[in-house]
Structure formats: C-alpha cells, structure tokens
C-alpha cells in the first residue's frame, strides 16, 4: 500500500516536472514570437494542445483490458495535467474582465469550447488504431 503510493508519487511527480517545463518553454517561445497579445495567449495554446493530447493518449493507453496504470499516471495525470493549467486560465480571464466584460465572456466561452472540441478530435483521430487491435 505504502510502497504503491511512493511509486505513484514518483511517476506523477516526474510527469508533472516535464509538463511544467514544457509549459514554461511554450510560454517563453510564445512571448518571444508574438509578444503579449491579450486574447490568444500561451495558456490558450497549452490548454488546447493539451486537451487534444489527453484525448489521443487516453484512447491509446486504455484500449486494452489491462491498461498500464503507472504509464497513465505519468503521461496523463503528471505530464499533460501539468502542461495545461486552470489557474493561469482563470487569472487571464480575471485580467480581461478589467478590460471588457465582452472579452472576458468570449475568452472563457471560446477556450472551454475549443478545449472540449480538441478532446473529441483527439479521440476520433486515434480511434481507427484502437479498433484494429481488438
């Protein structure tokens, strides 16, 4: 039990470390390329690509009867979970609210919708590969 928890912590922590670094890298790359635009931000890019990837990776990892739990924890909970962020998303929305309520609503609504859409696209894209396995 305790040994299991230690293993989980190591896999999630390692994934989280990589995810946070990738997010920081995306932030730096985005700011140096596009500057500080107000509507599309680095957080938007991370959340949308991360949502796409969770659809892809979840579908691929869980196609078998006995999915690898540690790989799930490392890739999904750790890496992709850390790569995307909710606090950054909400903080940006909060800052936008000071500029215009319309921009604020648009930012929240569009990011949630596009994120959701990305999950579905991610799942659909790898679906053919999962069927051939059965």
């Amino acid at each position: 039990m305790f040994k299991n928890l230690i293993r989980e912590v190591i896999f999630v922590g390692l994934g989280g470390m990589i995810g946070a670094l990738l997010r920081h890298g995306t932030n730096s790359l985005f700011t140096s390329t596009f500057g500080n635009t107000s509507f599309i931000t680095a957080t938007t890019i991370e959340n949308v690509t991360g949502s796409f990837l969770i659809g892809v990776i979840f579908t691929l990892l869980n196609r078998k009867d006995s999915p690898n739990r540690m790989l799930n924890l490392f890739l999904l909970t750790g890496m992709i979970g850390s790569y995307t962020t909710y606090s950054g998303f909400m903080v940006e929305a909060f800052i936008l609210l000071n500029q215009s309520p319309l921009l604020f609503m648009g930012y929240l609504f569009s990011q949630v919708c596009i994120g959701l859409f990305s999950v579905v696209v991610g799942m659909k894209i790898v679906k053919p590969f999962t069927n051939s396995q059965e």
Partner: protein
Amino acid sequence: MAQIFLIALGGAIGAVLRHLTGKVSMRFFGATNVYTGTLFANLLGCFIAGILLAFFTHAETFIEDTRLFLTIGVLGSYTTFSTFAFETHRLFSKPLKELLIYLFYQIAGAFILLVCGYGITAWLMRALGNV
C-alpha cells in the same frame, strides 16, 4: 538555470498534490462524475491563485523566483485544464443536470473563488499597511 529548476520542482509538487487531492476526494465522494479531484484541485487552486495574484500585484518587493516557483510551478501544475475538458466530455453522455452542475462549479465557482482570494488579500494588505 535556477528558474528552470524551481519550475520543475514546483511542477512536480503541484502534480503530486493534485493526485493526492484526487485520492482524498475519492475517499469522500467515491466514484462520482461531478465531484472529482480535478474539480477540487481547480477550485482550491484558483482561490490560492487569487491570493497570490493580489500579493504579487500589490507587494512592494518580492523575489521573482518565488513568484515563478509558486504560480508557474506549483499552482500551474496543481490546477489542470485537460482533465477538466476530458471530464466535461465524459459528462455529455450523462444526465444534463450533472453536466451543468459540473460546469457551474468549474467555471463560475473557480472564478468567484479567485475573486474572493484576490479581494481578501488586497483588503488585508491595505489594512495591514502593505507589507
């Protein structure tokens, strides 16, 4: 270089805390579609994000590395968008009521908590004469 290390460390801590939040919520709420670990992590994370945002906006001096460690590292990893989108998608095949409750807590709830965290901290800092 030190910044990279701090973000990596913060990211690992945030992810592990999120995983543990999931375990705790599992113990209290069981396997539910609405009251998930992701929901609680995002709610708590946004409240703390409000506190930190107010602090780092109004504080006269702070160490930039501390800000990076806490906001980009720990909180950025503790909260997550991908699982939120994933769980929302899963709720599409469940009763509409569950989906609406989940979205309400995640979006309105998290935002209100962020504003509360920000407001309380900004007020405290003014009252205490800006530390």
